[in-house]
């Protein structure tokens, strides 16, 4: 089995895992963490597709796109962390109240 297949499938699994974490954790930092897991899963999957032809070197375009993607994800994470900190400073909470989002079963403990 080629590296690309192993890490491609690994990426697919990471995406699922991250999605699970993103949906089930009400804590906002954990969501950001899960977001990063999904992101790296996507990058891994994408990178694996770029390396899936054994005859040739890895396609440079996806690599460049992934580098861009990592930077963009970092930017979003940094803003997210800042928002969580500011939100916690103002409200003392680290979860969103009365979560109307259908994807969030968790509520802060009573």
């Amino acid at each position, binding site marked *: 089995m080629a590296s690309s297949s192993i890490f491609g499938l690994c990426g697919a699994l990471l*995406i699922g895992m991250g999605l699970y974490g*993103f949906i089930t954790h009400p804590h*906002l930092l954990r*969501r950001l963490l899960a*977001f990063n897991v*999904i*992101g790296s899963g*996507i990058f891994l*999957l*994408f990178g694996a*597709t*770029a390396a899936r032809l054994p005859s040739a070197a890895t396609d440079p*375009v*996806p690599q460049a*796109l992934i580098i*861009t*993607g990592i930077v*963009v994800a970092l*930017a*979003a994470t940094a*803003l*997210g962390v800042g*928002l*969580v900190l*500011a*939100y916690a400073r*103002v*409200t003392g909470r680290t979860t*969103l*109240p009365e979560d*109307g*989002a*259908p994807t969030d079963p968790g509520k802060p403990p009573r």
Partner: protein
Amino acid sequence: MSVSLAIVALVTAPLVAALIAVILPRWGPWLSLLVVAGNAAALVVLIPAIVSQGALTLPIGGWQAPLGITLRADGMALAFLTMAALVMAAVLVSARPEFGGGGEVTETRRQWAFWPLALLLWSALNVVFLSRDLFNLYVALELLTVSAVALVAIDGKADGLGAALRYLMFALLGSLAYLLGAALLYAQHGTLDIALLADQAIGGRAAVDMMAVGLMTAGLAAKTALFPFHAWLQPAHSGAPAPASAMLSALVPKASFAILIRIWFEALPGLATPPLLVTLGAMGAIAIVYGSVLALRQTRLKLMIAYSTVAQIGYLFLIFPLAGGDSYMQPWAAGAWTGVMFHALSHGLAKASMFLCAGLWIVAAGSDRIEAMRGLASATPMIASAFALAAVTLVGLPPSGGFTAKYLMLTSAFVSGQYVWAAVLLIGGLLSAAYLYRPLAVAFARDGDAVFKPVPRLAQAMPLMLALAAILLGLASQGPFALMQIGRPSSAEAGLQ
């Protein structure tokens, strides 16, 4: 030459201005005016050029797709760019009293951050409307999201921060879904260019393509706040300061919607199946009814307007079942595709106007409860007129752009025998009349005792200008209609099925 410079100006002018505004915060308002002028000039050059020569393509760096990224100015792009320029002009002028920094010696956080963020948001929009590369669109969308989220939180209050977080969570997940879809498409076809994808994917309905487009659609729908992904919209749009709300409601959802249209109608028109189109249409229909009913129940002005946006976004998704509409059989039925574009444009103008009105009224009345608006129509007649004209557009009454949109969509629905969508359109119009009537009637009622803070005339003129533009879009539909036919994908006429 000057034409490609105009395209470059559209995407770079706001960027350069934003960068300069970072180091020279006091110049923010003036830089914005310069960008408005620059964009206006670029559009004045571009529109006649594409009317005479057809859609224009600019390969960035001289690298043709698939290696490089291309920008393409077609009718739809220019229509959206023009709308965005009008809205941004009004918003940036309106923002000056709040963010312009009067005579204070020390700069404040809000005043420093607002101008670069607003200008970056604008540049992201312009890139989204022009770019033909799926990954470039992703980066632009992220720029849009980051600046929009920051604008929601700019007041630093608990509501705004919570709303920004909720928005960010939805947007992040949406971005990831879109990115995943784009990655799969590249892996399958070796290109990210919309036109080349269309050539590659002709005919077949590969399962991977379906999955990729499904992921991108879900992600973009979340960013557009289509029901059931709308939960972030109303806190974000109602919690932000009025100029930011205007941008968020009028422009930001249009960006992800424009990408959605590019993907479905231009990149992979062969993928659609009737059940899928009906599903997308049904989600739009539910959004229309749900958003309208909730708007009816609000007692706060900005919340009501925000829920109205949830409803109005629903109309956009009727494009999927309605486009085409057997128009080849009935040459006068010009097609829902253009109708939905008209809706997107007129909603953008009218909704921005309405949020600016709301912002001024809230300042004048000192509260955002609708009941507090009693007597404001006499005190601020220009705002009242703007609000009323914007309402006329949103309800879809003649002679506004909203009516042209409704007429084209209704005709399509009838011609193709899809009466359900026609019913949704009409019910949605009546419901919007019902919820928009309330604040108007309250503002119109006389209240001799109320004392309002005065509102400067220039600030009042901005929403009025936008609302008049929305009306003018209907009165002079011919021009925009013809413009939007330039470079229009053939699937817009033939439908997606």
